[in-house]
């Protein structure tokens, strides 16, 4: 089976299998999906590791991400330049972390990055408000938004600086029962 495909060398597939939570078949399928996003840009032959990056606009229109309110932040968090341009490695990385086999700690790290809109390594009240507005498409009144954010910070903030550091976030996420089941993408 591995001899028939010419997209990756065996070594590359091996490396992908070790560095992600996917099997060979899934990696090849992911490559197919990546390719069909921009067939003229993405080469079918990846054996010499071409440096191809797809822009944010293409990736967020994938059916898996289209309805997700955080799609822009997700793609930005996994891109190397922070602008949302994903190479195939980043693409695979993204889906690997969001697959159901990734452990909770790994997902928590990336979840923190996604929800940290201003990337100051803290989830402050503004970040929370942005998250909430994206979730509810701004259908809550501003007073309700304020109340909810205050309550959330009250619940999770451990060190009393009225914003969530990664330690606070991780502690809170470890007690959230739905996190593992909701923070995963199927592809």
């Amino acid at each position, binding site marked *: 089976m591995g001899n028939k495909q010419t997209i990756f060398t065996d070594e590359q597939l091996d490396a992908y299998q070790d560095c992600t939570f996917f099997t060979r078949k899934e990696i090849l399928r992911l490559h197919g999906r990546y390719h069909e996003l921009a067939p003229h840009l993405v080469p079918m032959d990846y054996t010499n590791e071409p440096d191809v990056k797809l822009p944010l606009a293409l990736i967020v229109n994938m059916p898996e991400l289209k309805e*997700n309110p955080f799609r822009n932040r997700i793609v930005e968090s996994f891109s190397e330049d*922070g602008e949302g341009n994903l190479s195939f490695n980043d693409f695979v990385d993204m889906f690997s972390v969001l697959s159901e086999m990734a452990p909770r700690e790994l997902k928590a790290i990336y979840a923190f990055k996604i929800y940290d809109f201003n*990337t100051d390594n803290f989830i402050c009240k503004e970040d929370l408000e942005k998250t909430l507005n994206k979730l*509810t498409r701004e259908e809550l009144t501003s007073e309700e938004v304020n109340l909810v954010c205050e309550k959330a910070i009250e619940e999770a903030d451990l*060190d009393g600086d009225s914003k969530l550091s990664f330690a606070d*976030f991780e502690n809170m996420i470890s*007690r959230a029962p*739905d996190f593992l089941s909701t923070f995963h*993408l*199927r592809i």
Partner: protein
Amino acid sequence: MDTVDSVFYSDHMGPSSNPLLDQLPSYQSLLYRRKPSATAGTKRRASSRTRVGSSSSWKWKVDRVDERPKVACPQRPVRELPKTMEEKRRDKEQRMEQARDLSSWEQWRQNARRSLRRLKEESLDLLSTLELWRGDIHVIEGMFGTGILSYFSFLRFLVLLNFVIFLLMFSFVMLPIIVAPHAGGNSTFNARDGGECSIYPSTSRRGLVVFHQYIADLLSGTGFLEGTYLFYGFYKVQAINYPRFTYNLPLAYVLVTIAYLFLSLIWIVKRSASGFKRKLVQDEDRFQSFCNKIFAGWDFCITNENAARLKRSSLLYELKTDLEEERTKQKIADRTRKDKCRIYVLRVVLNVFVIAVLATCFYSIYRATIFSQESQMRPTGNVILDLIYEYLPSIVITLANFITPLMFTMIIQYEDYSPAFEIRFTLMRCVFMRLASIGVLLFSLWSQITFCPGNNCSCGYNHKRYPCWESHVGQEMYKLMIFDFIIIGAVTVFVEFPRKLIVTYCDCGLAKCTIKYFIVFYIKKMTLMNNCRPATRPFRASSSNFFFLAVLLIGLALACVPVIVSIAEISCSQACGPFVNYTTSWEVVPQAVSQLPSGLSTFLFALASEPFAVTFFVITCLVMFYFIALAAAHKRVVDHLREQLVMEGKDKRFLIQKLLQAQRTSVRSPGGHSRSDRGSQSHSAAQNCSSTGGVYLVQPPVSATHV
């Protein structure tokens, strides 16, 4: 607070940048590292949390920090590190290089481990393709999210459970009967003693039978169906004698029944254990509800636009409900005594009303059953009417289960509970209604079976009407099952499907459109009342799974009751079935035990005696209390640790502030004195595991991920 925060950012250009800060175990998890390359933008990746402090997976760290032993530290697998693909590949290559330094034994072991892991993954992959309905559930999850998924995977679990129960019964009860003639055993049948209790008129129809009679038989389990494997009356075999041993069929029947009840119990408990564990450790009363909804509320699996809209509105609804809950709590705290009295009186009145409604439903089920039984004795000849009379209990049960939830949701609004409690209480009432209605059906059947004219049942049951009462009960259950199935199918086909058709495909002129929307409005309203209400008030994915299984457990417990009563108490029919020679079904077990060698049989009889039962009960209670105490202790420990975490965080910030103050004073007064000060400061700071000395107050590096 920016000056304090900037302590955490460091410029890794110079050698004097915060080696102490990097060494802090907690900071190793927070450190955002710049990509040490010449690319224009800077990139941030969170560092990995190394388990036992082994930093051998970090190339640059190995140079800087004290050399740690490179081998035999439990490292995280590369794929679990939060780095980019290139970094992970480099790590992997680095580890392989290190592995080459190891002895060949170590190398072989690592390779073996890796290939074993690969093998396990591939076999799990293969096994999951064999899973029932895997593709369909995949699609459902992808479109509608994990909340709906939990319902379907619960359905799949039910199918599997029922299939396993069927396999058990088949292989231990039916298979021996089928195989006996081929395997050289001969079956001995029940010895009919010829008394009047053992008269069993044949149920197969003779002579010219109208065709629709067969359909009526199929739908009600009588006639030709009654003599098949489906019903109890078929099992007339007493024992199967093989050359070397005798297979006691009645014993097998009883033991397999008990076995599958136990199996269901264990399987359901195992499946619900994870959800229950979480519930025990967490506080029940909305400890983290807001955070959980904001950060873990959106189901990333949703790809369908409608499902996304529904999820969004349900999240909105949940958040609003939570806010309302807070307000309600406030309101409850503000209630005066007069208010409380009024509310309690109202609640008592409404609960009495609910009980009255339930009692009415149960009584109508009882009467419907009795009427149906009596009309079965006197068939009117009209097939359709006969069928309706036979299905009357099922119809009444379904109607009751349709009306009562509507009534309950209306009533609960006046009882003024908090929203969360409202939902749970209503659901509890509906579930109780459903389970109890089946119980009432069984009870009314039993009262009919044991009711004899003249009040003395010579055979223990009414043998004239019900020569084989077990088959009869089986038939009633069969009818209930078929009717339930028909209703589910009919609702889907006749309500949902036309609704979708009308909404999507009807294209019409202006006037017709008005009419169409008119009709659609009513249909939508109807389905909203019946179907969509649960959807807009969903349970969280995990807790709803637990709720399904909890309901299943209660159902199992309630189902055990009639089974136990019928095995142990009710006299079996003497005209059919394998227990003809015994008074109750359970009798076969003591009889079989007494035929065992004497030591074993005394032991087994001792197990069933009262002293043993009492001791066993006491020990079980003790064990249960122990586990309850353990759970409470764990909860306390969790709370305590949380408080400790808060304290530690505050300590850290305090020390950092102090350090900054000290640095500021030392910067202001330069000189050897300050350097030694700084040195001693950093030394003591290092001992306190707080921030470092010699920190440069640089502005936070420009993040390219800044939006």
